[in-house]
Structure formats: structure tokens, C-alpha cells
């Protein structure tokens, strides 16, 4: 069989050589963040000299399941995937286990009673990101010298998507525990993780609630869209309305360095190298932690200028 490497996977010759074959099923390519994540994994696999079988599920769980089935049929050495949703993986993971192929999760975990179905999770924790956002908001408010009640507008991600649910949950957790009386989410609506959505929703928010103090956006893109809406309404983002976002893509950092975003909670997509390390360890029969957290940090406005050059995506 002929195989053209396509510049990503490197050439391979079927099952004959000793190269590790990694089957990776990506969620999709719904955002810049996700594309950066894909790139990171592809280039890391190439660097490590693995034979990468990549497939894109177009945000559909059934596609991921059938992709994993096809990896099992292709007898890859290790399977890794970023689950679209947390539930419903038992059956196919059992098949993988029966075929003795180790499974590594990236990006987020799955719900299962049988812990042996996967080896480890490489990735972050969306709920924690929500908590971190709330924490950093405290600092932002303090720095801005804001006193008294805080009216918060929230731009949620796609309704029903795990990051949206969990970031909102984490944020609310901290808010309810520590700022029950002074913080209040006055409006919350989905902006579908997109700039256009963020802009449109924020424009409507500003009409119905002109006195918003803080905007918490579930990702940078919605935040950037919202900034444009705030400016169109004649207000100053970052001053009249304080903005906290999650992700830390390059454009977010640019906006922050311009003073339009007050803080960003990083959610690092570049977990390719970490993943490849784990793959090697697993293949060599070593043991790994159940959860390998990605290296992430939170950024305030004053760190933006320094951090900007390090942003690759």
C-alpha cells in the first residue's frame, strides 16, 4: 500500500517496522485553540518519530467511536483521544482493552466506573479554569479599585459543551462561596465561543444592562468580540467594563497588552510533547500518573507585554 506522508505523519510502512503507531482522534477543528492543539500533537509526533494516525471527529462522538474502532482494527500501538463528551465510552474502550491497546485521554476526562479503561489523562480541568477566573477577578477588581457591588455579565460557550458548563460551574462555585453578597451575574448568554457571537450578545447586553461592571467570557474570542461591541457603545473595555477571559490565544494577549482585557486564564493547547512522553512511557511499560496536568498559568494585564512574544497560536 502506498502512503503519502502528507508532510505531517512522516512516512510509514504498515506494521512491519518498530516505529510506534499512535492513533489519535481529535474532537474537531472548531476553534483556533483546537487547531493549535492539533498542530502541537502532529508536530510532536513527528519529532518523536511516531507514526501518527490522525482523524478528526467533526465534533461528533459517533465519529470518534468509529475512529477508535478503526484504530483497533488497524492494530495501532496506542490510542489517544480528546473526548467530545465525557460520557458513553465504556463499550469502545472495553474493546480497546480487549485488544490490549492502551488508551490515553487528552484535554478532558471521561466518566466511567471502570478506571482501568484508560491509562491516564493529559490535560487541564475546565472547572478549575472557572475557579481560577473567579480568583483572578478578585485581583482585577482590587487593582481597578472597584468597591461594593459587582455586576457581572457572562458570555458562555456553546450551550451543552463541557468547557462552557464547567467553566461556568467553577466560576460560580468560588462566587457563591466567597462573594455571595457583592458579586452578581446579572446576564448570562451563550456566544457560541465565537467572536461574532460575543459581539452580538454583548451589544444586546449593553442595551438591556448598561451598568455592567465586569465581563467574564468563556474564551478569548468571545471576549474580543465583546470588546468591539463595548467600544461601539462608546465605552472603554478594560476600564469601564473589566474583562476576564479564558484560553490565552495570541489575539487575546494582544488585546490585553492594549489594555482591553484585564486578565486571562490560560488553557494550554500545546500538550503534544507531554503526550508523546506519556506514549513512550506507556509503550515501554512504565507507570504514569492518572492525571498529568498541563503547564498553565494566569496572566494579569501587566504581564501581557512580556508574555506576548511567547504566544505561538
Amino acid at each position, binding site marked *: 500500500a502506498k502512503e503519502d506522508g502528507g508532510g505531517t505523519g512522516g512516512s510509514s510502512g504498515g506494521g512491519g517496522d518498530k516505529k510506534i503507531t499512535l492513533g489519535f482522534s481529535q474532537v474537531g477543528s472548531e*476553534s483556533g485553540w483546537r487547531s493549535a492543539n492539533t498542530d502541537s500533537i502532529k508536530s510532536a509526533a513527528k519529532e518523536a518519530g511516531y507514526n501518527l494516525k490522525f482523524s478528526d471527529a467533526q465534533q461528533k462522538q459517533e465519529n470518534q467511536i468509529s475512529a477508535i474502532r478503526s484504530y483497533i482494527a488497524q492494530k495501532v500501538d496506542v490510542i489517544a483521544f480528546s473526548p467530545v463528551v465525557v460520557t458513553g465510552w465504556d463499550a469502545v474502550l472495553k474493546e480497546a482493552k480487549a485488544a490490549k491497546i492502551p488508551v490515553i485521554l487528552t484535554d478532558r476526562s471521561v466518566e466511567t466506573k471502570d478506571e482501568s479503561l484508560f491509562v491516564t489523562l493529559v490535560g487541564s480541568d475546565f472547572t478549575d479554569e472557572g475557579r481560577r477566573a473567579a480568583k483572578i477577578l478578585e485581583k482585577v477588581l482590587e487593582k481597578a479599585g472597584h468597591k461594593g457591588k459587582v455586576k457581572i455579565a457572562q458570555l458562555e460557550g456553546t450551550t451543552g459543551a463541557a468547557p462552557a458548563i464547567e467553566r461556568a460551574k467553577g466560576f460560580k462555585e468560588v462566587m457563591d462561596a466567597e462573594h455571595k453578597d457583592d458579586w452578581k451575574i446579572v446576564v448570562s*448568554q451563550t456566544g457560541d465561543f465565537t467572536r*461574532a457571537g460575543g459581539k452580538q450578545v454583548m451589544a444586546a447586553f449593553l442595551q438591556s444592562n448598561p451598568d455592567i461592571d465586569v465581563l467574564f467570557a468563556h474564551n478569548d474570542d468571545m471576549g474580543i468580540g465583546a470588546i468591539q461591541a463595548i467600544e461601539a457603545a462608546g465605552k472603554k473595555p478594560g476600564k469601564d467594563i473589566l474583562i476576564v477571559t479564558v484560553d490565552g490565544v495570541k*489575539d487575546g494577549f494582544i488585546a490585553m497588552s492594549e489594555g482591553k482585557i484585564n486578565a486571562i486564564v490560560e488553557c494550554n493547547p500545546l500538550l503534544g510533547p507531554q503526550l508523546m512522553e506519556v506514549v513512550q512511557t506507556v509503550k515501554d511499560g512504565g507507570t504514569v500518573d492518572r492525571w498529568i496536568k498541563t503547564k498553565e498559568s494566569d496572566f494579569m494585564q501587566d504581564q501581557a507585554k512580556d508574555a506576548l512574544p511567547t504566544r505561538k497560536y
Partner: protein
Amino acid sequence: MSTPSAATTSRWRTLTHHHLFWPVAVLVALLLVNVPFTPDFFSIKMTDGHLYGSLVSIVLFGSPLILVAVGMTLVIATGGIDLSVGAVVAITGALTCSYISDQADQNALSGVFLAMGIGLVAAVVCGLWNGFLVARMGIQPIIATLIIMVAGRGVAQLITDGQIITINSEPYKLIGGGYWLTLPFSIFVVAVVVAVTVALTRRTALGLLVESVGGNAEASRLVGIRSRRIKIMVYVFCALCAGIAGLMISSNTSAADGNNAGLWIELDAILAVVIGGTSLLGGRFSIGGTVIGALVIQTLTTTIYTIGVPTQTNLVFKAAVVIVVCLLQSPKFRAKVFGAKFGPKSGAASGGSAATEPAKTVTTAEAAPKMEVS
């Protein structure tokens, strides 16, 4: 029967039977719903040298949808459908923005125009392809346009490399996000496109030929209408409209998002066309109705944001409004619920002719089934 009250009722009846009455009524109702939640909903003030207010943003954000829906109207009038508009929006935006972002001076007018030209040419190519598949190859429109719907988004992402391309071009920003003469510039674009479309269809014979092809394809062939050419034309036109909408959407946020730009806009556009009173079976169409329909949908979206509908019930709310709009537009429904007054047009006719005994006409509860030719 020339008493003043009779005269007003008959005028009222003529009004309620105008084909745009119900769409407009729904639009007004939706706008009014906002008032309790946003008391100054209708107020428009000057901010930064341009008008600012809810109505302005409805038009601003609704512009791309209006454009796509206007193009879709013609396609639907020929009995087709175009599912690829969302992908065309994405491709156009991606091409234009990626070209602009490669420029040394992103503000140079020539570069921006060239970029827009490239984007629109790509849109036209998509339209030609759709038209070719439908008219030349005789493939069913839903499937023919599904191809670009699936592949087009991939192409857009290929162009942007899966990233969101951000640009910083003031002239480009004007189209979808800027203001001119204190109004959003996009209003002018929409006005021009709508005017051109109306002129093209009603000042020339294009409208008649399109309606004929959609109304009876075989008969049209036998009177010598070059229906292939017409079909290709409407698909190209539709793609061009989608292309302009793509420019607007990307210009509005100064960014091209291959995956999300115009996602599911085809469904909203089709919905707008139908709310505007054009039948999906082809034949008669109404551009004015489509514009109203698109505004209804945009107002609905804005309303959801402003009245604080919880996110998880957004769709239920939308479904409810769509159902109500459609029911109101159905003559049969009106007849069943409100009685003959708002019912099918036969009521109006009997009211107008003095000779009829009113008692007998009240029984026209049911609309006569729409007969084909017989």
C-alpha cells in the same frame, strides 16, 4: 353597504390580506416584547459620531442574514435550495482576510478591494459549481449544494490554517462594522443589494421567468425559457450574496473564522424566506417579504439576548416563536381560530360584493384546498 364602519372593516380586511401583513405584525410584536425588559429599546442616540441603539444593532447584525436570504429567495423560487451559503460565507471571509493580512499595509484601499474581489470571485465560483450540478447535471439541489456545504468549510479552514485570522484594516472594517452618514455602512450595502435584486427581477423579466421555472419546469421548457441558464444565474447570485455577507461577517469582527463564520446561516435564511411568504416549492417569491422575515429572525435573536432567556431554553423559545409565526401565516389556522374574519380571502370577497347575503358566507370556515390546474 357603505356605512363608515363597513368601509373601515373592508379596508382593514384589505390590509390583513396583504401578503406582508402577518410578517410585519410579528416583527412589530417581537419588537414590542422587548420594551418591558429594555425600556429605552426604541431610543436611538448619538455615540462617537454615529447612531447607537437596539434598532441600529438589529439592522447591523441582521444585514448578513438579509443578504443571504435575498439570494436564497431566488434559488427557492426556481424550486431549488442552497445549503452551501454558510460555507460560502466562510470561504469568502477566509480568502479576503488572509489576503489582507498578507499585505504590508492593510489599510491600502487597492489591497482591500483586490482582496474583496478575490473573495467574491471565489463565491461566484462556488455558485457556478452549484448551478452546474443542478442545472447541467440535473442533481437534486439539496444534494448538489450539500457538497460545498461539507467541503467548503474545510476549504475555508485550509485557507486560514484552522486559525482565526485577525486583520487590522480600517477600510475593510467599514463594510460590516463601520458607519457612514451616522448609519451602519452595512445598511447601505443591504439597501443596494436589495434594490438591485428588485430591479433585476421586477424591472426585467427575470422575476417572471424565475417564477415560471419554479412554478412548472416542463411548461417553462416548452415555452422556450432557457431554464438552465436561469438556474445557474440564481445560484451564482445566491452565492454572490452569501459572499458579500461573508465579507460583512468577517469585517464586523475584523477576523475570519473558517469554522464558525455563517454556521447554520442557511437554515435561518430559509426560515426568513418562508416567513416572508415564499413557498419552498418554488414559484411566486417576494423579496420584501424575505427582508422582513430576516428582520424577524434577527429581532428574535436579539430579543432572546435582551429579555434574559436562560441559555438552555433559547431554542425552545425560538421554536415557539417560529411555530406561532407560521401558524399566524396559515390561512387555514386563522380561519379555524379567529373565524372567517381573518380567514381565507373568500371572506374578503364576500364582504366587498354587496349582493351577497352575509349569513351564508360565514360558513366559509374552511379554505378551499389549493387546486392546481383544474
